[in-house]
């Protein structure tokens, strides 16, 4: 007999007049790792909110650990003991690992904190999962993977029976992900259940027992075991697969191995030491960050947040200050949230990049000609719409078209697929391919290689000691990582 840990029965949840979930059914059993693929992400945030807090429902019931915790008939507005782990840390900064795991948990009653005792209590947990995180380390000094592990341990120690991992592969890299799966299976055997939310099918297939497909706030289908490959992979990735095959067949490596366009010379930051790297004209370079501190250093270099300790950037041999240079554009992670100004009009948002290239962009006739040129592509209606009412796809389109108008030599995309559901991933991919087709170099800064690998001409993996590994496209097939398109490279090699 299977024990149900969590169940949502026919839940309809309306938030601010919008139906987030409709007739939503989901059950998670004890010890199970349940996958959730957002075909489109509508309702995902609502679902995560409802799992943690018992908000008022329009219809349906929510059960947790055998008890009805929420119902349309009565809402207690209480909090469920369900942990959510994602890109944002929920640990209390400037406190140690043991403080976060033991001291801050509900029911901790010791008047005097005995660090030695707590350290002793933490030890069996660490040895259980074969991890070695110093008990007295401050959590803000931990790597992303260590932070995720501490959050997981905190949930386990607090007795949470269900833990949600939301797009965790945007935070931890491939090797760490494999370790995390081991830890999940370890706790799964002890009766803990997991909901693993990810649009990456290969991750789901690797770790999950069953998978639910979320679309428009409803569960479209639940599949398990052998069916997962047949129904999920073949059903939803055919278009993506065809697109990538076409791209790979038509991408000529001779196109880009010509001219050095951007170079980093002896860049030194907090963790990064004497980092040198080159980007060639029209190439797609993927930079995978294996270390969180290094990742932060690179972001600071790109955004000009901190003055470099040492080193410089060059574009076409000319020394440039990165954020100010018009020849380089940066698309931040989750650009639909971070790069669009809702209080400005669509046209103003669109022309922002162009204003760096030419004056007079705010004049009527220039804008009219932009509208004439891009109206048929973007849709005439978007120019009249308030920006906050744009769909997610229109927002992505706005950001990438802005870059297109700016015509930089190099576009750096920071985690371009982060937060995008399956539908929007295809769109983002096409947008980046368009930038490449227009002759720009695209640099993808990522932690997860899944989608980026399909576009890449070259892969550079960076750790604390600078470049750890550099792999050219023709060698991708030999990479020992979990990425969906590697088989395509392998078949290409075989051919």
């Amino acid at each position, binding site marked *: *007999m*299977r*024990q*149900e840990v969590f169940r949502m*029965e*026919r839940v*309809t949840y309306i938030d601010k007049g919008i139906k987030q979930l*409709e*007739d939503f*059914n989901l059950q998670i*059993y004890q010890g199970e790792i349940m996958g959730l693929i957002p075909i489109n992400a509508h309702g995902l945030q609502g679902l995560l909110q409802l799992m943690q807090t018992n908000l008022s429902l*329009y*219809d349906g*019931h929510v059960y947790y650990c*055998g008890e009805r915790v929420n119902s*349309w*008939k009565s809402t207690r507005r209480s909090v469920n003991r369900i942990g959510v782990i994602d890109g944002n840390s929920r640990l209390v900064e400037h406190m140690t690992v043991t403080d976060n795991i033991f001291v801050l948990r509900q029911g901790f009653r010791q008047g005097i904190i005995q660090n030695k005792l707590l350290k002793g209590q933490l030890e069996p947990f660490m040895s259980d999962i074969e991890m070695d995180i110093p008990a007295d380390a401050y959590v803000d000094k931990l790597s992303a993977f260590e932070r995720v592990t501490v959050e997981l341990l905190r949930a386990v120690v607090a007795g949470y029976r269900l833990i949600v991992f939301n797009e965790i592969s945007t935070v931890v890299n491939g090797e760490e992900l494999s370790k995390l799966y081991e830890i999940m299976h370890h706790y799964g055997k002890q009766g803990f259940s997991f909901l693993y939310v990810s649009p990456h099918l290969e991750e789901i297939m690797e770790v999950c027992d069953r998978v639910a*497909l979320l*679309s*428009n706030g*409803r*569960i*479209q*289908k*639940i599949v398990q075991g052998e069916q997962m490959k047949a*129904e999920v992979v073949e*059903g939803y990735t055919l278009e993506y697969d065809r697109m990538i095959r076409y791209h790979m067949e038509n991408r000529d490596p001779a196109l880009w191995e010509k001219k050095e366009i951007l170079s980093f010379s002896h860049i030194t930051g907090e963790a990064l030491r004497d980092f040198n790297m080159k980007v060639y004209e029209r190439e797609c370079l993927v930079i995978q960050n294996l270390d969180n501190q290094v990742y932060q250093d690179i972001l600071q270099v790109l955004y000009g947040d901190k003055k470099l300790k040492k080193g410089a950037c060059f574009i076409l041999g000319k020394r440039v200050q990165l954020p100010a240079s018009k020849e380089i554009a940066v698309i931040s992670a989750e650009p639909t949230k971070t790069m669009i100004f809702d209080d400005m009009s669509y046209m103003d948002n669109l022309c922002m990049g162009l204003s760096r290239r030419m004056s007079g962009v705010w004049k009527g006739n220039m804008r009219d000609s932009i509208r004439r040129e891009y109206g048929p592509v973007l849709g005439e209606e978007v120019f009249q719409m308030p920006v906050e009412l744009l769909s997610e796809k229109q927002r992505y389109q706005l950001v990438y078209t802005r870059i297109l108008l700016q015509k930089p030599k190099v576009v750096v995309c920071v985690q371009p697929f982060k937060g995008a559901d399956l539908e929007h991933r295809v769109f983002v991919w096409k947008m980046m391919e368009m930038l490449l087709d227009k002759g720009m170099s695209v640099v993808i800064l990522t932690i997860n290689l899944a989608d980026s690998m399909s576009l890449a001409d070259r892969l550079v993996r960076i750790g604390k000691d600078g470049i750890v590994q550099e792999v050219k496209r023709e060698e991708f097939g030999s990479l020992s990582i979990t990425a969906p398109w590697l088989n395509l490279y392998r078949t290409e090699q075989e051919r």
Partner: protein
Amino acid sequence: MREEYRLKYLSNRVLLMGAVTLIYFVIEAVRNVLLGIHGEETVLQACIYVLLALLYLIVVWFGIILPYRRSELLVHRFLDGYLTESSDFAEVFQSPSMKLQMDEIEKILRSPKMIDLNKRQAQYLALQNQINPHFLYNTLESIRGEALIAGLDSVADMTEALAKFFRYTITNVRNLVTVQEELDNCETYFLIQKYRFGNRLQLHIEYDVEDWEDIISCKIPKLTLQPILENSIIHGTELKVGTGNLRIQFERTQERLLIRISDDGVGMDEETLARLNRKLGRDGNVLIHEEEARGGIALGNVNSRIHLIFGEEYGLHVYSVPQKGTDVEITIPFAVDESRVKASFM
């Protein structure tokens, strides 16, 4: 002015009066505080007015506004097609006559007559299949074919299967039967269909061996599985090119029995699926309209009977992906005796 804000509605008039009274209290409280500051009133008097204003606000908020909102939500749900019980309104009846009205509606919707009516509808649907010329001709054609090609054994088998099916559908008058009985009926029905489809149709029954003894003795409403299985064949696998696989999966949890009937047929698009689940979720209209598609009737009928017998927490939910197939999940409380069900529904 928007329709819902017009003063022709009593609720808006009450709201207006409440707001006027509140404003009066607030003005009085402020006036008394100011007088108190200038020493023309005692501080105690000013405090009393402030407290009165706060008390009024709290009483109105918790005693009137929140219950009124809840009552409005329940009425909206009822209009939306959800079955609302009189007990849902327990704290929020707007008047004694409204309570009587709700009791009466509930009595009608939950009467044994309604159950009988639904059961009869299910029997009618099952019978209609036999009267349906296509079904009859196809079956007879199969019998004839078998009689010509082979000996009389298979004819006897088919006839026996048909007789068994009729007997179970019409003669057995109980509302609740065991899973074993329902499954036997499904196998009989499948046997008949098998003569028509041959090897194009495969039935798989999956369960956890440890729980099987408990599962087969669990009580479920009669004619729960066969109409859904029939639906899966007609709307799912019949339209598919190649072999159609039908699966009946049984799963037991602490409280519930989950039965999943799946096909790998043509499936349905997202909009149709959403509409179907919406209909299954809102069964205020327990009697299904004739003009609805037959597939919808079968699912709606089974769902309504489960709701009426076990409550709205149980019932049917459909999952589907176009060209990949459809799963119908039936949720029923796990009960091997009939004590959980009202005597009138036996």
